[in-house]
């Protein structure tokens, strides 16, 4: 698998993505979106609401957890943990859900960037996501935020 590095948000955030994903345009600023040709895999990066890294982190992830449980059909969360990537802490959730009859596997990563949420979503349509887990791990491990941010 080949990977390409992308520099986002005025080159302050770096991520490495599989070369099979191509960047797609979104009408919204501060959002980035890539998809594979067969649209089975999508990666979505955006900045969210304001968040104080130290105090609100756990609460914010918990809110997302509850929201997903409420809004997504057949939501099953099979992994919640904090994760350290390049010296920064992130909250990670992995869950399966259904939408329009299709099963989805999602990795949701919540971090902080310039006092706001940094949200990274990796989504896989279908049940065969386990073959690609190693690739998703590489994507997560590649996230870098500039030191002064």
């Amino acid at each position, binding site marked *: 698998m*080949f*990977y*390409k590095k992308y520099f986002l948000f005025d080159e302050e955030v770096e991520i490495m993505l599989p*070369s099979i994903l191509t960047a797609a345009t979104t009408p919204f600023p501060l959002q980035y979106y890539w998809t594979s040709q067969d649209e089975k895999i999508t990666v979505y990066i955006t900045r969210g609401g304001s968040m104080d890294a130290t105090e609100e982190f756990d609460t914010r*992830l918990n809110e997302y957890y*509850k929201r997903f449980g409420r809004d997504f059909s057949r939501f099953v969360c099979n992994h*919640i*943990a904090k994760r350290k*990537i390049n010296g920064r802490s992130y*909250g990670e959730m992995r869950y399966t859900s259904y939408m329009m009859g299709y099963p989805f596997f999602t990795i949701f990563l919540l971090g902080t960037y310039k006092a706001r949420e940094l949200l990274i979503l990796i989504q896989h349509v279908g049940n065969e996501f386990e073959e690609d887990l190693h690739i998703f791990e590489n994507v997560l491990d590649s996230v870098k935020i500039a030191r002064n941010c």
Partner: protein
Amino acid sequence: MIVKTKENQISFLFYEPDPFFDMGCGILEQENFAQMLPYKRTQQNGREKLVFKIDGKRIVKLANKIQNFSERDIIDVLYEMIFLVKKVEENGFLKRECIWFQYDSVYYDKNSRDIKVAILPVIKEAQSVDGVSWREHMEKTLSQIISFLSKEKTAQIQNLFSQFWAGKSTESKILDELERLGCNVSGVLSRQLVLQKETILELIYSGRGGRILFAVNNNDFLIGRDVAMADGVIPEELSKAVSRKHCLVSKMQDKYFVQDLESVNRTLVNGIMIPPYEWMELEDNDILSVADIEFRIKKKYIDK
């Protein structure tokens, strides 16, 4: 929080609804700690209640058994308690205060020879019950267990834990010391801990013209012919096909990736050519071809 202990169960009734309760229960299920008592989640008068069940035949109160333990068994119990604290905190969301270490509520599984305790999905309410803090409970429990050791070992281990409470020692150091004092379970449990090791990558060439060994650790490693710029220089006498700045090896967490820098004669991994400026992961025993120079990759783990 109201705690009630009966012969075959411990129940926790929570005063206020805790916003983290659902997520906490999810994490407990996900982590599935071997030392955790099985539990059932119910409601009582609209309040959350957790009931931890004890099978009285196989699982018994530690307090009723410990006087028959050998010194090694007692050190094993101490090891397991500290190991569990470390394991619980690895998740990042759970805290040590989730572990209910009150002496009368610590159990022992006669078959698996594990301790068994209640682990709660909340923190705030568990921090202090009846005016007694979590730390006070834990200190008291440890003291009571240690008191069954010989005088010499008691003094040694009490000193160990004093350092711990004073913040001068870590769980890992305590575990290492308990191993040294003759703990039995360390080998089994230590494999469950996240390995505190670092990786380095060795690139080994052996062929005409000699032998080259490059060792890559935490910094980006440029390979090429340029003596001034490259970290790993491939001399011209060995190959004229290598570009001055040929490829870059970079570390990400404990993995390594190589990027071709638009070299003339390309970079390949196991025969697959890397497009210019794209990255490919390097794994143990891969063959990295820098033009016509083939390196075998060796990934090594060293203690942090």
